[in-house]
């Protein structure tokens, strides 16, 4: 597959945006400026971005508790995301959702989800809707390695297989579910193997290689649009940060080694893409630097927007429950 320069640049842009956004979140929480808790995906950007780059605007995604990256990759507005995380009325959910529930239905983002595995049947239903309404939209379903042990994973993949639904199941295997290593909670080394149990294709993908992710996603999307049903992509990656920002404050002991973290940091997906495109001469360093700068500026602007935005009024708590 030949990936055009524009696509590559866009992927680079999105990865930087995610990285800067989440780095900022982390700093703000650490500084005590944002109260709640948030799960960041620093180090895993290539998976979110490679998948979403293969999608069209009318395609849909479902996301997880660790969802900022998916949302940004699908086009989410940084300012409205940041405002939501600040709990402001201008946020995507008017302050009602917070980090774990951001959605943008106009972009096909059906929402992050606080329930591990909760989004998997929802993505499946979204794909069913496409099929029933004879549209060739695809739904990409993000979930973690931990979620792959939930019953909803099983029920959904079986359903999507027998109904040949246009859905891409994207398992982000980052080596942990909270503090439990994947190896000790999951009966198989490669979750992709489970695809056999549903008679669908399953692939192990280098989740830190955005071009590889993009290639697999494009193929899976093409299969889905052609009516050939779902695909399971297991993207092996790693979260550089804790399960939740600030976890050092409340857990004792560590559940992974510094070497392991260092090893994965050395495989930074953003630097990997830089080296690839610089090496091939496709794109110049200055262009990349400009993109990185822009991302930083966008994040700063988002923070500014959030800070300037009003908190919701107490009375707003009663709104938005019903379609009247």
């Amino acid at each position: 597959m030949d990936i055009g320069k524009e696509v590559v640049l866009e992927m680079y842009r999105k990865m930087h945006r995610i990285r800067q956004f989440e780095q900022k979140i982390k700093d703000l929480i650490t500084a005590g400026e944002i109260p709640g808790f948030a799960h960041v995906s620093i180090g895993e950007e290539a998976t979110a971005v490679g998948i979403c780059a293969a999608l069209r605007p009318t395609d849909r995604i479902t996301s997880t508790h660790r969802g900022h990256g998916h949302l940004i990759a699908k086009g989410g507005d940084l300012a409205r995301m940041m405002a939501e995380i600040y709990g402001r009325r201008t946020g995507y959910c008017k302050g009602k959702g917070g980090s774990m529930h951001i959605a943008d239905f106009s972009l096909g983002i059906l929402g992050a989800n606080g329930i591990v595995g909760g989004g998997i049947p929802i993505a499946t239903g979204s794909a069913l809707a496409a099929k029933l309404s004879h549209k060739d939209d695809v739904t990409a379903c993000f979930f973690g390695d931990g979620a792959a042990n939930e019953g909803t994973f099983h029920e959904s993949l079986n359903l999507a297989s027998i109904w040949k639904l246009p859905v891409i199941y994207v398992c982000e295997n980052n080596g942990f579910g909270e503090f439990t290593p994947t190896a000790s909670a999951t009966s198989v080394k490669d979750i992709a193997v489970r695809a056999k149990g549903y008679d669908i294709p399953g692939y192990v993908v280098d989740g830190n290689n955005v071009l590889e992710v993009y290639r697999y996603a494009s193929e899976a999307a093409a299969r889905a649009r052609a009516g050939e049903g779902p695909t399971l992509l297991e993207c092996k990656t790693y979260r550089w940060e804790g399960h939740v920002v600030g976890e050092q404050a409340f857990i004792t002991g560590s559940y992974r080694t510094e070497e392991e973290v260092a090893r994965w940091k050395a495989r930074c997906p953003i630097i990997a893409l830089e080296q690839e495109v610089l090496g091939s001469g496709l794109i110049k360093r200055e262009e990349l630097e400009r993109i990185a700068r822009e991302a930083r500026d966008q994040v700063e602007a988002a923070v500014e927007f959030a800070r300037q935005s009003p908190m919701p009024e107490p009375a707003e708590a009663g709104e938005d429950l019903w379609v009247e």
Partner: protein
Amino acid sequence: MAQLTFLQAIRAALSEEMERDPSTFILGEDVALSAFGSTRGLLERFGPERVRDTPISEAGFVGAAVGAAMAGMRPICEIEIAPFIYCAFDQIVNQAAKLRYMSGGQARLPITFRTLYGAAGGAAAQHSETVYPHLLPVPGLKIVVPSGPADMKGLLKSAIRDDNPVIVFEHAALGRTREEVPDGDYLVPIGKASVKREGRDVTVVAIGAMVPRAMAVAAHLAGDGIAVEVIDPRSLAPLDEETLLNSLSKTNRMVIVDEAHLRGSAASEIAATMAEKGFDLLDAPIKRVAALDVPIPFSRPLEAAVIPDEARIAAGIRAVLG
């Protein structure tokens, strides 16, 4: 107008609404062949895409209904027998009912859940339970419990057209009850109680299959000169407090009959609300007549001992009459 059974009323509502709106479809276990008859004939009419048998995977297909709704469809999702809902509880409680609010009003979830509930003789604890109490504490979900064919048709049609999640509880013992049902676009609004019988001595609020039972008791007590007003709330969420309070202001006495276990029942919820808002109207304590707090047993005499029967309803009425 035609005489329809409860089951025929369900089928009429489903087929009329499916005819009307191409974004509707049915999914659930064995809905094509329809073991209990409520979807019979729909496969032939609307085909297997829109009358969709699912694997036995409640969380999966309920979640699929949620996702399909958020992507623009109007699913009608059948959970064959009510206690199986517990297998999909997260998708109903944490997802369907919360997603609109959590997304700040972005998501639309026009889903109708339908399920068979209640004790109808010998199906035991995992198949006979009255399940709506577990869903009372779920903001974002409407709960409808029709007690006869006409309401069944009118409420189900309203549920399907509602842009919010609605769950309709269809009592297993009512399938063959029969009454006049208006043809065509007959809609019963969700949230409006129905006064089934007027009376000035005592208000009996009865739910689902308890309504015909309460009506029988009322007819019987009329012979003793006791004028019972029977009210069917029809929907438990939202609850038509006004109609109930109006009746209470006339009778000053209330009995609530619920097939659910007493603790946490809809009877308790209604009683608490009435006792709070209608305190000055009450001449006697509100009496709840509900199932005993044990699982529903298999053997007939035991089942009968657990579920409110006419004798217990009558005793409840006499108790509040003092």
